């Protein structure tokens, strides 16, 4: 089905895009790859008057290194992130999570920034961004930028710290060089959104876990970070028994949805099993 009518703008700089946003306000939707937006428009679940396509803004694309950070442009496609040796070396968790997103065609068009701002709790980018303590650079109306920690970025279902008239421009990821990583995604059929996903990255020292970071997908209205589990894992050997005990409480306090794929309690159970598996895999056990 064809979407409702809209006007189309394709700015070539961030400034132009911000200006367009300022002009059209609520009536505008940002097209950042469009792999979630276009189905919504086709189903006429949303009918913006203006669509602002970020696809022609070169400065928003690509991966670079900035000291101990990776800098990923918001309009970098999943495929480009996956092709980046820098990402797989310094933020392996991100590569592994993104490799599970949707299907190859979607990964050719969808962007990391688009996914983060869309903030679907079942999306696979939020949890690794949280676990890697990414920082999100947001450009504002007056030409200013501000940086928000991933922890503060996700506010609610489909709601982020990106305010009216603002754009997400960069994802800055602290390098986790040498950290093991695994993304454990649970689905019934492969093209599904995550029923539950667990992003784990681990720094090992002498056979035990020195540091661990764990993010959860679809265990609440936003991606979640499991800090108490991270702490409990420190110093533990990478054995089934030790990790099982350390992650046992991972679902405490979470409020996952209930739907055809599983009720809330089942998701909580899944989270504990998948966290154990993700951590063990990340630790190379």
């Amino acid at each position, binding site marked *: *089905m*064809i979407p*409702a*009518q809209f006007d189309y703008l394709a700015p070539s700089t961030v400034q132009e895009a911000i200006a367009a946003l300022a002009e059209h306000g609520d009536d505008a939707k940002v097209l950042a790859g469009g792999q979630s937006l276009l189905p919504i428009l086709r*189903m*006429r679940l949303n009918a913006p008057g203006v669509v602002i396509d970020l696809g022609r803004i070169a400065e928003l694309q690509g991966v670079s290194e900035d000291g101990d950070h990776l800098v990923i442009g918001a309009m970098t496609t999943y495929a480009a992130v996956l092709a980046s040796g820098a990402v797989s070396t310094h933020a392996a968790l991100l590569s592994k999570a993104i490799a599970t997103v949707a299907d190859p065609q979607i990964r050719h068009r969808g962007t990391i920034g688009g996914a983060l701002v869309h903030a679907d709790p079942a999306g696979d980018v939020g949890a690794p961004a949280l676990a890697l303590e990414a920082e999100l650079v947001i450009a504002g109306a007056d030409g200013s930028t501000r940086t928000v920690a991933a922890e503060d970025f996700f506010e609610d279902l489909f709601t982020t710290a990106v305010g009216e008239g603002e754009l997400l421009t960069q994802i800055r990821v602290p390098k986790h060089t040498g950290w093991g990583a695994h993304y454990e995604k*649970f689905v*019934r*059929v*492969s*093209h*599904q*959104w995550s029923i539950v996903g667990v992003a784990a990255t681990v720094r090992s020292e002498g056979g035990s876990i020195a540091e661990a970071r764990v993010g959860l997908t679809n265990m609440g209205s936003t991606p979640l970070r499991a800090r108490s589990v991270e702490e409990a894992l420190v110093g533990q050997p990478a054995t089934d028994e030790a990790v099982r005990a350390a992650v046992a409480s991972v679902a405490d306090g979470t409020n996952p949805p*209930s*739907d*055809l*794929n*599983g*009720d809330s309690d*089942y998701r909580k*159970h*899944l989270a504990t*099993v*998948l966290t154990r598996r993700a951590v063990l895999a990340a630790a190379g056990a």
Partner: protein
Amino acid sequence: MTITEDRAADAPTPEIGRARTRKEDQRLITGRTRWTDNIQLPGMLHLAMVRSPFAHATISAINTDEAKAASGVLAVFTGEDLKDIQGVNITAWPISADQKTPDHLPVAVSHVAHAGEIVAVVAARSSAEARDAAELVDVDYDELPAVLDLKQAATDSVLAHPGLGTNTSATWQLDSASGGTGGDIEAAIATAREGGIVIEREYRQQRLIPAFMEPRSTVVDPTGEQVTMWSATQVPHVLRFCIAATTGLQESKIRVIAPDVGGGFGGKLQTTPEEFATLAVARKLGKPCKYTETRSETMVSGHHGRDQWQKLTLAAEKDGTVTGLKVELMADLGAYAALVGGGVPVLGAWMFNSIYKFAAYQFNVTTYYTNKTWVDAYRGAGRPEATYGIERLMDELAVEVGVDPLEIREKNWIKHEEFPFTTVAGMTYDSGNYEAATAKAKELFGYDELRAEQRRRRESNDPVQLGIGISTFTEMCGLAPSRILGVLSYGAGGWESASIRMLATGTVEVVTGSSAHGQGHETAWSQIVADRLGVPFEDIEVLHGDTQIAPRGMDTYGSRSLVVGAEAVIRAADKVIEKAKPIAAHMLEASVDDIEFSAGRFGVKGTDKSVSMPEVALETWTCHNLPDGIEPTIDADATFDPNTFSFPHGTHLCAMEVDTETGATTMRKYVCVDDIGNIVNPLIVEGQVHGGLVQGIAQALWEGAEYDDQGTLVTGSFVDYTLPTSADTISFITDHTTSPSTTNTLGTKGVGEAGTIASTPAVVNAIVDAVRSFGVNDILMPCTPERVWKAIQKGGAVPVEGERDAQPHFDEGAPNQDPGAASPESASEGSQS
């Protein structure tokens, strides 16, 4: 005079049995296709449908003013505007004389009975403008309470159609005692309760969506003397009949064309509101009109499949010899009785007894209306449901007796030397060899090794358990002997028609009443005719799917095309030969009695004189020197009405791994050995089997149409109606044994539905087998990880064999069902959003 090279000298190897690659492919792999939605006609208008968002409501007002005033809009029609000419979507199979059947109007006039029903149609210059204007149609509904659950429907506490006074449509029974084909079922059960085994189970056949890949589309051109309709349909001939029967258009004024059709699986065995609405609008406006649905519209408007509760009581002796089976079905028709409608569950009546020798048998079905999408044939239609029920029960019986499930089947199945065998349901199976298929399947599967691995995993308490599922199935296909259909009050015959046209230049046109939509008839029919007439495969063109080209036909469904449709082709070919003989004799200056036809040549016995089929065709065409009084044509027509069904069978073995920590299931191995009689084209047969398997496996594992408590289809797109992908499936091991059918010339049996019919119970049996040691004896389909995991949790491991509770008996309101239900509400219709 010879205009073709003499091919008889190097007589080709037989075409039948060759793995010919398909003629159809060249167009399809290069994008040179004729899907209905591709059709563009001068002046063509595009339609958009306005559909009810409510499951049950009366329409109090429709305001079309704003839509009519929108850009590019020619007209907006309500049901009221179209009611004189729109006709009605009829059911062909009232299963009882007193069946209650609500009128199904293509565009609702005053009452909608399911979400998605059409209430208005917009005609505009472009499809975009039609869709834009459809959003502007303002409909006032008065919502009525909706009945959504089948068991609630049976109570009549809420009515789907208040005017009917009940939700019950009809009841139907087959009873071996009263039919004289077996004993009394109640007596058998009573005896078994005394000292034998009684197994009582209630199984759910969830609602499925056929999900053919091409959304349905219809183009109607009313500008000629005949109104022409192109439609993505399996049944162009049936469609023409139904239009003529209900719209006031004469049958001779209607031409229906099924161009390239992108899959059906029963889902396009329908005459649809959309087809009738498009026809009505095109006639009103006098302009060609096209309507193509979106996938979301397919999901709510195209008919669904399955949707039954099966209450089954199996009686057996202590040693596992089955003495009787009682079947009580509740079937959900959805909002309306569809084309086959209540007949779908009835098609299972002869199949619950399957390959087994039961002494007594009774089948009962009651059909009900609910405020959900209508239900009709989906690949297998009645037979997958039956096969599921009996094959699940045979596994339960094996557990009860304490033997391998293959052993219990062998104890009860018909032995190969007992064919032809008349079953307790009154069907006579012509041929089969269950022992041979099973032996081959076991060997290919590595049955004993997998059983050993299963034991090891059990003993070591492996978190990943292994289960082995068995399905030894048979089915009846090749619909159908017209007399039987008549006895069952089906509204049409089951014959098929064919014509063969011998062209002057030696090539051949084969016209078939079958209507292929992916089955490869062009290739298979060419192989058959090539052998029969001795003409090259490449010189044969198969024509179908257009009532002007193939005026007579009963179309393609029920695995009927090869065993009924191709039989008609063979008979037409034989008539061609007989008609050609006197002409050949005349050409050879011999007596007709001395003419022999072999490998494409007519020869004179005892001589080396001969003429080829193309030579006779040319001689006939020129007509210069034919025998006196002979009609100058060797073209021939044939119509074949089968006198029985065909009964393919097979043994399917499935190994499933169950991750007991998450409930996730993984298929490890799948072997099937099918006996479909003689095979025309092994390549096409394998393809049918593979595709059928995945559809059946998908019922077991992934698919289910679910509604919320407002009557909205929750699984209304491919996001939530989870079809499997290549990444979710495995490669299969398929093989065959061959017991030629004795009921048709080629000894073939149908194959189109076999994989789907057999595979579902094989998969569920495997999963239950994997977790039976946890105290699980059933899991609701689809066996989602959540359901499997919850079944394990609720099952409560049985520490020692023999400590299991006695088999539960049916109690009112407390069926032994659904240990893995996801919600405290009705398991199948849970309103989880």
